[in-house]
């Protein structure tokens, strides 16, 4: 079954089903196995990453060479430019970061890491993916309908988004909204599953502090998502009615208020950035502990900082609205909360860095990605402080400085973090070992151009260049910056070309890579005790694992090996171990 599903996964990826009869494809689509669903999310997310990357390529070409026809696309009109960036932003967040980091890794790893044979509600899980797939179809087709795709930015501020008179995309804007709403439903269904699974389905012996970081982080993220998205769902219903039923919720002329949407959106939008941050941190922690051969520096500290971040994130949303015409006194409150949230995150970063202390660090490909996450995320984090300081945000708001800030957070999360997880768990997912040399070429070929894309954007932002402009030739003060824009675009093209190394590596490995052992990295957590790839049901029903210790017991003084898997019974009476 596992082999068969891997084969269909592959067939799915390349859209060539010739060697699989319909029966197999159907079985694959209707599977309730958490691993198959994880693969569905993973490959859908990967496909959407390619779409999102392609869109970035198209509009960056337009910015570097305005008015020229873009190879593989054509001319970019102002309307199309707006549709492109809107789709890029929405897709990268809702259809790449969320499905890959939360749904794919969460689905694959939560049952495996807590020693369960599946999610507690497998059919709910399948439904979640099916709704998600529907949302993918809606968002992609919205780009091709009459009038074109929605071009009101991923934040969709009304009245622009509420009225076809203003946005000129009657169909595109409603479809965008519907796609986002469907995606929310999919993740609510998935989230309930993750939370209850972690709460109830843990292996015997696994206490709260024996759970590895990744399941914790995914579940914390799911809770945050669930508690923040509600008001936006209500807001989306109102926006939908404004678009299609002629109500005036966001129309000041009819007793509505456009700023209401901004509150509802950012009350969700800010927690959302930590919703994707936490799972990425979870991945990075697993990888760093394994390859540094170190116990995490303060397991509980990490949990508490993550929880503190989650709680505080509900109180910072209006830092996106400093300039929006809200009461200026409110800005002061949100400056304070925004700066305070830097404390748990700083502590989280310090703990990750301190974990390296006293380690025995092996720089394999997954480890390189995980370390790069840390190094790059710091840039994104500290630049957030400039924006959080309300006085400075007066100037920086809506400039490329903001853009560079959040690409320095999102790219490490959604791309670097994903690659860290993908290369780390690839042996478990597909039963083959990736080539390390190709992996490193791909790593450097991605990281170096990444910095050359976005460091220049900080400079553009400081010079006053603003976002969402299809052509800067109209702004006398910004014209001389063209060489910087071209540098960023060229770096992007280089980065995209290096992705072929990645795909080559994956396909080559899939065809003729060496077979992966059960536990190639000598790691402690339970997913490394099943076959690679894990069979249906993960463990034989009579050999479900039991847990005897925490997940990060590397280089334990009582033990010869430098690792101590969670499921190995203590050899002798346990010595009273030092405080965890």
């Amino acid at each position: 079954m596992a082999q068969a599903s891997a084969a269909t996964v592959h067939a799915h990826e390349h859209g060539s089903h010739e060697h699989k009869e319909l029966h197999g494809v159907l079985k694959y689509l209707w599977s309730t196995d958490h691993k198959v669903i994880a693969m569905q999310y993973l490959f859908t997310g990967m496909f959407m990453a390619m779409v999102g990357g392609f869109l970035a390529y198209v509009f960056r070409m337009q910015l570097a060479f305005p008015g020229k026809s873009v190879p593989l696309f054509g001319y970019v009109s102002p309307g199309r430019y707006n549709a492109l960036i809107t789709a890029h932003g929405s897709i990268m967040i809702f259809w790449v970061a969320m499905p890959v980091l939360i749904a794919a890794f969460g689905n694959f790893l939560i049952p495996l890491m807590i020693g369960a044979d599946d999610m507690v509600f497998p059919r709910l899980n399948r439904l979640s993916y099916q709704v998600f797939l529907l949302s993918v179809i809606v968002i992609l087709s919205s780009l091709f309908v009459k009038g074109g795709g929605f071009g009101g930015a991923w934040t969709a501020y009304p009245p622009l988004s509420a009225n076809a008179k203003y946005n000129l995309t009657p169909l595109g804007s409603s479809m965008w909204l519907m796609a986002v709403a469907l995606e929310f439903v999919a993740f609510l269904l998935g989230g309930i599953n993750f939370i209850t699974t972690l709460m109830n389905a843990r292996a015997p012996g696994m206490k709260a502090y024996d759970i590895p970081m990744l399941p914790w982080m995914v579940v914390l993220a799911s809770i945050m998502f669930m508690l923040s998205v509600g008001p936006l769902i209500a807001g989306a219903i109102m926006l939908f009615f404004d678009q299609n039923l002629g109500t005036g919720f966001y129309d000041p002329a009819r007793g509505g208020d456009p700023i209401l949407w901004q509150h509802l959106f950012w009350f969700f939008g800010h927690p959302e950035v930590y919703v994707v941050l936490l799972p990425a941190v979870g991945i990075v922690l697993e990888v760093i502990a394994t390859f540094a051969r170190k116990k995490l520096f303060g397991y509980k500290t990490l949990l508490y900082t993550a929880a503190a971040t989650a709680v505080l994130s509900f109180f910072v949303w209006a830092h996106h609205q400093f300039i929006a015409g809200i009461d200026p006194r409110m800005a002061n409150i949100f400056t304070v909360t925004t700066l305070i949230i830097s404390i748990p995150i700083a502590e989280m970063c310090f703990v990750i860095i301190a974990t390296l202390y006293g380690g025995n660090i092996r720089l394999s490909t997954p480890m390189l990605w995980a370390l790069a996450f840390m190094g790059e995320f710091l840039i994104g984090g500290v630049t957030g402080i400039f924006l959080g300081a309300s006085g400075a945000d007066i100037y920086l708001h809506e400039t490329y400085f903001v853009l560079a800030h959040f690409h320095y957070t999102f790219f490490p999360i959604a791309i670097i973090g994903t690659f860290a997880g993908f290369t780390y768990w690839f042996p478990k997912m597909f039963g083959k070992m990736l080539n390390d040399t190709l992996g490193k070429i791909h790593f450097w070929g991605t990281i170096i151009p990444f910095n050359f894309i976005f460091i220049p954007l900080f400079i553009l932002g400081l010079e006053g260049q603003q976002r969402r402009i299809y052509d800067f030739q109209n702004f006398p003060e910004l014209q001389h910056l063209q060489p910087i824009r071209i540098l960023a675009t060229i770096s992007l093209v280089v980065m995209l070309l290096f992705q072929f190394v990645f795909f080559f590596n994956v396909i080559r490995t899939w065809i003729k890579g060496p077979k992966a052992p059960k536990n190639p990295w000598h790691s402690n957590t339970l997913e490394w005790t099943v076959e690679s790839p894990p069979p249906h049901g993960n463990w034989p029903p009579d050999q479900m694992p039991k847990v005897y210790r925490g997940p990060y017991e590397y280089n334990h003084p009582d033990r010869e090996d430098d690792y101590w898997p969670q499921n190995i019974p203590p050899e002798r009476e346990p010595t009273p171990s030092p405080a965890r």
Partner: protein
Amino acid sequence: MLHGLIPEASSFAGNIDWLIFLVLVLVGFWFIVAEGVFFWLIFRFRSRPGHKGQYLTGHEKHVERWIKIPHALVLICDVIIIIGAVHVWYIVKMHLPPADYTVRVTGQQWDWVFQQPGADGKLDTKDDIYTTDSLHVEVNKTYHFLLESRDVIHDFSVPVFRLKQDAVPGRTITGWFRPTETGTFDIQCAKLCGIGHGVMVGSMVVETPAQHAAWVAKNTPTSAQ
């Protein structure tokens, strides 16, 4: 700090640049320390034959302080930044110095309409001057602006002034600026407002008192006199 990149042409531009510089120093310090320690640790504890990792939980007193102390210091930095930010915010957005002139700025898809007092120096009288896409102001005079929008949200942004404010339909938002340098500068619309957002440019013409008086005299509608 930014004047190497873009001129400082209003009375509060210097405050904002100073704040950005303050943040840069404080977070820059932490950034360099964090990255420095990070790379040093990667190098220092790289895997070597015969080398064994240590078993630390992070709760030992002598190591825990390496988290606790920075934690407290970051808090102090945060407080300093908050004080600076609130200070600058107060100057720009929370208080209104008495106005020499008041102008009305209206955003619409996709241009700026400016209404300013004619020869009598008062807004909303018969001799008001209406212009689109360029606003003529006098250097070293305090201006109040009344910001409105006719359709969607726009944003009145003058980078050289470090001035930015959303124009929200249904509201009139009052703000102020005081130009300190003459010249012609960009006015941008900084909120996505539809397909014409990229061409919603204007110019802010800061003139000497003599030039400005001449401009007002020339443009005050004759019918009103």
